[in-house]
């Protein structure tokens, strides 16, 4: 087992390295034109451009450039030339907001998706199943910015049931933190609920036909014991790896639209704003930030998968 874990961790480091090289190439090397000009933002001045060129080493060879860029990213020496703010600080400020959104939404979507998916499978072909299927498809089809905006407007602004966007620190006001996040959590979860409940439904239906479920019944286990210990457990295993990818993406600031619609000022929104301003240093940093979480979560999921399914460990 330790070999398995070590192997995965080593692979993670290698992948991160590859991602960093790719990001560097995409932002600084490949696009046409003068990277210094690009970095100087919308209103570049000659002095600015020259200063940037010095600081980032754009005259040097590509390896030195890569080294300088990575050094700046990791030592927190990145500043946006547009807003004059320290990129790392901005990201750090955004982390609790993004994490709050991600974790809450993930828990919500998993709980609801499992309930819907399982119920759908148990009532396969009947009305409840068809109804939940349609609901799921609708959920998948509604763009999050649209549903988010609608919820914000009607439930927040018009009816006043929920706050109208924004974020409250947990440490300042836990209740406020919670009420401000209910709508964003729901908006973000709807899409995933639709998708995951379908996948789970399909897994459960497959598992119900497995021979070992028949054996479990033949042993005299109650239907509930069969469903939970044999069917649900085995059906959830493939979902774990899906969940790792999605959760990792959201943690890393991937919920750009949700954050923006509800004005949560998290990492995702920061990325969105910076992209709008064509502000390269923040975008560079956020990309690496997001990539890190996806790769890390993927590795965690791989390892967890090994715990859940012993057949995987053999590889």
């Amino acid at each position, binding site marked *: 087992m330790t*070999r398995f874990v*070590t*192997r995965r961790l*080593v*692979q993670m480091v*290698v992948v991160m390295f590859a991602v960093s090289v790719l990001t560097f190439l995409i932002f600084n090397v490949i696009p046409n034109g003068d990277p210094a000009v690009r970095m100087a933002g919308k209103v570049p001045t000659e002095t600015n451009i020259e200063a940037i060129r010095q600081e980032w080493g754009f005259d040097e060879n590509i390896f030195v450039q890569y080294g300088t860029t990575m050094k700046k990213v990791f030592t927190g020496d990145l500043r946006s030339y547009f807003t004059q703010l320290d990129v790392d600080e901005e990201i750090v400020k955004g982390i609790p907001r993004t994490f709050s959104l991600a974790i809450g939404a993930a828990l919500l979507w998993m709980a609801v998706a499992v309930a819907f998916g399982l119920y759908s499978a148990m009532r396969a072909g009947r009305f409840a199943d068809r109804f939940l299927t349609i609901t799921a498809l609708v959920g998948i089809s509604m763009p999050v910015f649209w549903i988010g905006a609608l919820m914000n407007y009607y439930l927040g602004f018009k009816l006043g049931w929920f706050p109208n966007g924004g974020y409250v620190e947990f440490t300042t006001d836990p209740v406020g933190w919670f009420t401000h996040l209910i709508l964003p959590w729901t908006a973000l979860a709807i899409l995933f609920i639709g998708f995951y409940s379908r996948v789970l439904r399909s897994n459960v239906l497959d598992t119900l036909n497995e021979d070992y479920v028949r054996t479990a019944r033949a042993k005299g286990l109650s239907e509930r014991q069969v469903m939970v210990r044999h069917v649900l457990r085995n059906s959830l295993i493939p979902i774990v790896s899906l969940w790792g990818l999605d959760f990792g993406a959201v943690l890393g600031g991937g919920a750009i639209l949700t954050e923006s619609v509800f004005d949560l000022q998290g990492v995702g929104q920061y990325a969105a704003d910076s992209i709008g301003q064509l502000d390269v240093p923040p975008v560079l940093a956020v990309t690496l930030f997001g990539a890190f979480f996806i790769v890390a979560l993927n590795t965690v999921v791989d390892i967890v998968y090994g715990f859940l399914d012993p057949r995987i460990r053999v590889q």
Partner: protein
Amino acid sequence: MSESNGGGPLLQIEHLKQYFPVASGLLVHRTVGHVHAVDDVSFDLDEGQTLGLVGESGCGKTTLSRSLLRLIEPTEGSIAFQGQDVTHMSMRKLRPLRSEMQMVFQDPFASLNPRKRVVQIVGAPLTLHGVSKGEIADRVRELLDRVGLQAEHMNRFPHEFSGGQRQRIGIARALALEPKLIVLDEPVSALDVSVQAQIINLLDDIQDDLGLTYLFVAHDLSVVRHVSDRIAVMYLGKLMEVSPAEELYTKPIHPYTEALLGAVPVPDPRENRARKRVAVTGEPPNPIDPPSGCVFHTRCPHATDVCREVEPPLARYANGHLAACHHPQQVSSDEIRAVERSDQSPLSAGEELPQAS
């Protein structure tokens, strides 16, 4: 009988090895060992004959059958078809020869493409070899008739047929290019007993009509008895015994063959009650780390020190009966004295021939 290579065997396998690497390692996959799936096997197959290849799961018979058709690349050794060495022949040169050797697979449900009609399935080899469309339809009709199906079956899909019928379709496909050699990998194991009998009869008939040579891979000793001229018994990648068919059952020399025969239940209650059976204990060993000396020694009731240390050569007894054992059963002292070492022995085998006691 065979004009093309001056009367030599149709198929000649010499010291064939098929090893599969076992990978391990943190980042880069290092090969830490090999699965000895086929471990130095040699035999000849004459034209018009049927060689039965028997053994339990993991013995290497399926791997061997795939190797000799070059479906997987052999690790070592040589394969000669009609006198030509085809072991390392390029795919281009091999193509025309491929039409001479065909295969029928075990699972009639998995070996037919469920989305193709019968005429496409049976006609596929013909299309690949450039036969025109009109001719294909005629030929397919002919083939279906030969295997006992009707022309109207041409446009149906596999799922509309029973297991036995699908196996007939597989056989028709194998016959399409008029091959000389057909390798049958457990062609009747997945079928019901009464259907097995039908298919066995069919295979018998077409062998006579078309002058085919069969390599019949099976785990069922009773089926193999019915169809083979000679039978080879494999265990853990090695040949234990090769014998004319009937003699294997009346005079099994190798203890493993005895054990196999003893384990097969006979559909005759009184005989079963009377039979004294030598039980084989334990499980087959790990093919990544095969036992030293004779690979069967860990489960053999007659094993002694020499069996643990020295791999027995394939010794030739009367009637072309070969066995690789230091303590051959059912042979008289005279027969043991007359024994010779066969050159089909594995290269790793020792020099010691069995001694008359």
